[in-house]
C-alpha cells in the first residue's frame, strides 16, 4: 500500500496545479477592480491569428521618462501604476517595487523591454483574447480599435473580462 502513495500524491498535485490556474483567474475576478483600457490598431495582418485576437493597448508603450530606475536594456519586471481619465485608464508611472495605490488608481505587473529610442514596450499578459475557432472574423477589420474591460487584482494581475469594438472614430 505504501508503494501506491507517491502516485496518488502526484495526481493530486497536478489537479491542484489546474485548480491553481483556474483559481488565479477567479481570485482576480473576485478581488479585482474593473477598469477600461483602450487598444491601438495592430498590424492588420496580425489582428486575428487562428484562435485569438492580438491586442495592443495604449498602455503597451510608455516613454522611458516615466521609469526612474536603472536604464532598461533587457526584459525587466516592472509595476505600472494606472489612473483613470474620462473613464479610460492611462499610465501614471513605472516603479520597480510594488507601489502604494489609492482611490481609483490601480497597478499591473508587466515585463518592460526597450523598443524605440526613449520608449519602453510593456507586456501585461493581456495581449491575447482567445475566441472560438472561426468566430474571429468580426474582429478582423483593419485598424479596428477596442475598448477592453479588465479586472485588476490588488496584487497586480489582470484578466480580460470582455472586449468591445469601438464604433465611434
Amino acid at each position, binding site marked *: 500500500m505504501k508503494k501506491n502513495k507517491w*502516485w496518488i500524491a502526484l495526481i493530486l*498535485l*497536478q*489537479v491542484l496545479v*489546474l485548480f491553481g*490556474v483556474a483559481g488565479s*483567474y477567479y481570485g482576480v475576478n473576485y478581488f479585482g477592480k474593473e477598469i477600461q483600457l483602450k487598444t491601438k490598431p495592430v498590424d492588420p495582418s496580425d489582428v486575428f491569428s487562428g484562435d485569438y485576437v492580438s491586442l495592443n493597448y495604449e498602455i503597451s508603450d510608455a516613454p522611458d521618462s516615466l521609469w526612474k530606475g536603472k536604464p532598461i536594456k533587457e526584459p525587466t519586471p516592472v509595476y505600472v501604476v494606472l489612473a483613470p481619465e474620462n473613464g479610460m485608464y492611462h499610465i501614471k508611472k513605472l516603479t520597480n517595487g510594488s507601489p502604494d495605490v489609492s482611490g481609483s488608481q490601480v497597478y499591473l505587473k508587466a515585463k518592460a523591454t526597450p523598443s524605440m529610442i526613449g520608449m519602453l514596450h510593456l507586456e501585461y499578459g493581456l495581449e491575447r483574447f482567445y475566441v472560438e475557432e472561426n468566430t474571429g472574423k468580426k474582429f478582423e477589420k483593419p485598424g479596428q480599435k477596442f475598448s477592453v474591460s479588465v479586472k485588476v487584482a490588488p496584487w497586480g494581475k489582470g484578466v480580460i473580462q470582455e472586449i468591445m469594438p469601438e464604433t465611434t472614430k
Partner: protein
Amino acid sequence: MNDQWLEKEGKKWVEESIISEDQYRLILAKYEDNHSQRGIGLIPIFASILIGLGILSFIAANWGGITPPFRLALLIAVLCICYGLGHTFLQKGKQALGHSFIALGIASFGASLILLGQTYHFVSYDARTFIIWSLPALIYLYFLKGRLLFFLTFAILTGGQIYTLTEFSSYSYLLLILFGLGLGWFALNEKNRLFTRFFAAGFVLHLVFLAGTLNENWLWLVVILLGVYSLSEWLESILRSSLKFFASAAAFGVNLVLYFSLTNAPPETMEYPEPLWFLIVFILLAAFLIYSRMKAGTLSAVLKSGILFIPWFYLATFTGNVAVGILYLIVAFLFSGLLLSEGYRTEQRYQINWGIILFLLVTFIAYINLAWSFMPKSLFFLIGGILLFALYFFLQKKKKDVLEEGGIHHEKK
C-alpha cells in the same frame, strides 16, 4: 532480424557446417519468443493514442459551448481517468498498457494547462507551462522507467525549448537543466544505447539553441561543445561516447558553416567572441582533455576530433577571411579523411561509413560554394552528380577491399 530469417539462414549454416544441428536448435529457441511479443506490445500503445485522439477531437469540437468551470471539471476527470487506468493496469502487471495510459495522463495534464490558459485568456511569456508540464513526466520516468515515458519527457522538454525559442525568442535555462540532469541521470542509470544516444543528441541540440540565443557571439558554441567533449571524460563509457559523437558532429557542422560564411560574407560582417575569455576557457578545457587522455594513455585518439574544436577564426585578423574559410574546409576534409583511414585501419564498418558520408558531404558543399555562381546550372548539377558518383564508387571499392582483406586476415588468425 526476424525468426523466419534466422530459421532460413540457420539451415544454411548447418549445411555449411558452421554450426551443428543442436546449436541451430538452441539458437532458434533462444530467439523465438522475444520478437512476436515485441510486435504485439506496440498495439496497446497505438490503441491508446487513437482513443486519446478521439476524446480530444470530440472535446475540441464542443469546446466553445462548455462553460469554464465545467471545462476545468472535464479536464480533471480526463486526467484522473487516464492516470487511474494506467495504475490499475500496472498493478495487474500489464506494463505496456499501464505506461500508455500514464503517458496519456501526462499528455492530458499539459493539454489542460494550455486549454485552461486559453479559457482564462492568460498569456505566458516564458517556458513556465512546459516546465510545470515536464515535472510529473520526470517523476513518472524516475519511478516507472520505460521507453514511452522517456520519449514523452524528451519531447516535452525539447519541444518546450523550441517553442520558447520561436515564440518568445528567449532561452529557458531551467528546461536545459531539467533535460541535462533529469534525462541525463536516467540515461546514465539505464545504460541503454538508445536512451544514451537520444539524450546526447538532445542535449547537444539544447546547447546549440543556447549558443544561438546568447547575448555574446554564437561562436561560443565552439567552447560549449568542447566543454561537452572534454567534461564527458568523467562519465561512463556509453554516455561518454554518445556525447562525444554528437559534440563532434555539431562541431563539424560549425566548421562547415564557418567555411561557408567566411568565404562568402563581406569581411566587416564577421564578428568573433572576446578573445581573452574565450581562449582562457578554451585552454582550460583543452588542457583538461589532454591531461585526462594522457593519464589513460590514449592521447593520439583525441587529435582526430580535436581539430574540429580549434578556433581558427581568430586567424582571420592576420590572414583575411577567405584563407581561414578554406582552412575550415581543409579541416573538414582532414577530419573525414582521418575518420576513413582510421576506419580502414581498425576495420570498423560504421566508422568507414561515416567517413564516406562526411567526405561526400564536404566535397559537395565545397563544390556548391565554388561552382554555383559561375557555372551554368545544368552543367553544375551534371558535373556535381558525376563527381559524387565517382567519389562514391572509389570509396565503396576501397571499403570493400579493406573489409574483404580484413575477413581473410581474420580467418588466418
